């Protein structure tokens, strides 16, 4: 009798988990995301969101507490221990593409209370610090052009590719 009850509870929990996850995954979570905040110099990244979800399982690794994931960072836990899922989940929803514009600096100064989220990085850095940091740990690619090919404009400012210096190249020192 006891065992039957336990099985029923388990089944109920299982059904709820499935329901919750189907709601989550059914509610417009994109499978692919185009990241093109630096398309001035690099081609956009066709980010495979679905495979990252499948590999990592934990949304909080990238999305902090915003998806309702359990938060472990001791600094964030102080306020967000029980924060539920937020309306805004995307990176660009919080991280500004122009973190140092006069308007953005003023916003940060006028924040109340002033100490929280004061040191929030811009959008480009949110991508790079998040992606490259994790890629290093996981042994995934970390080179600039492993993720996004530099375009012609980028080659121009890097003086690379067809814009490489034509002056007699200095004896290249061997590099290890």
């Amino acid at each position, binding site marked *: 009798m006891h065992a039957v009850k336990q099985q029923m509870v388990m089944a109920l929990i299982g059904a709820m988990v499935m329901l919750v996850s189907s709601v989550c995954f059914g509610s417009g979570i994109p499978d692919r995301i185009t990241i093109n905040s630096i398309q001035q110099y690099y081609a956009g990244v066709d980010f495979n969101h679905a495979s990252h979800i499948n590999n990592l399982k934990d949304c909080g690794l990238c999305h902090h507490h915003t998806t309702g994931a359990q938060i472990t960072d001791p600094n964030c836990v102080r306020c967000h221990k029980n924060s539920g899922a937020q309306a805004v989940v995307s990176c660009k929803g919080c991280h500004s593409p122009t973190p140092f514009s*006069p308007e953005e600096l003023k916003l940060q100064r006028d924040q109340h209370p002033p100490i929280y989220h004061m040191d929030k990085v811009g959008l480009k850095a949110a991508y790079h610090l998040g992606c490259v940091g994790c890629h290093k740990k996981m042994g995934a690619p970390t080179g600039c052009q492993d993720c996004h090919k530099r375009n012609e404009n980028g080659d121009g400012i890097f*003086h690379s590719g067809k814009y490489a210096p034509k002056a007699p190249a200095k004896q290249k020192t061997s*590099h290890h």
Partner: protein
Amino acid sequence: MIDRRDFLKGCLACSVTAASIGVVGKNAFAAGSFEGYPDAMGVLVDLTRCVGCRSCEAACNNEQKLPEPDLPFDDESVFAEQRRTTPKAYTVVNKYETADKNPLFRKLQCNHCNEPACLTSCFVNAYTKTKEGAVIYNAKVCVGCRNCMIACPFDIPAYSYSSAINPLIKKCIFCYDTRVKNGRPPACVEICPQQVMTFGRRSDLVEMGHERIKNDPAKYVDKIYGEKEVGGTSWMYLSSVDFDKVGLDNHMQNEPIISNVKDFLGMVPMVLSIWPALFTGIHLLATKNKGEHGDHDHKEGDQQ
């Protein structure tokens, strides 16, 4: 002829003036340690974030319209040696090997001191510290004496030796003309993919730096380099290793460079104004006695 009483009066007046100048001067020096303009901007450089991509060098070259580099900016062979700033590159990234095999990279450029030694040393007043925090210079008045190169504690100003006609000093100006003057961040800060550099009001950055150290004491050395060094700099650094391992002098004085010569230089006008009067007085007094004596001698001689 000055008589003894007048001379003594003169001496007394002189010494009173000298004393009062001395007191005023001393007060002026005491109040003279300049903490920087209150709204000056700065940059906090977090060395733990830099991956050595050299985008900042490329952006600087582009923004400042500098000549074509010798090698492309994505060529990593430049890390084989420690480079310094040149007339063609106002910023360069160097690589530093560390004990735990994860190399650190550091971008070199002008640190934009609160009390710049270059400015102090320049006798044609080519340098200006702007209220935004930038140390800029007027190339039109530069005579190419290179005093600033010797004065700079960070070896930043470079000299265009290759120019035969008009060699000049060249250095990072914090993108003052094109960006910082209008409240926009410098080109290197804007292009950095990792936000190694945080641009903001200097006073906020000091607070932010200490907050980062507090939140992750295992990651950082407990010091912001440039908060106090040589009287404070607009560009400051956080590091995971001792600063002397990344090419920054960890024993830099906290006093501005000008303090090393300020007391001496403060005496110069005093010496110039008082000593002539004082010694003229002494001379007159001495020669008066001597003159009378000499005349007497002469008369005696005449008599003989």
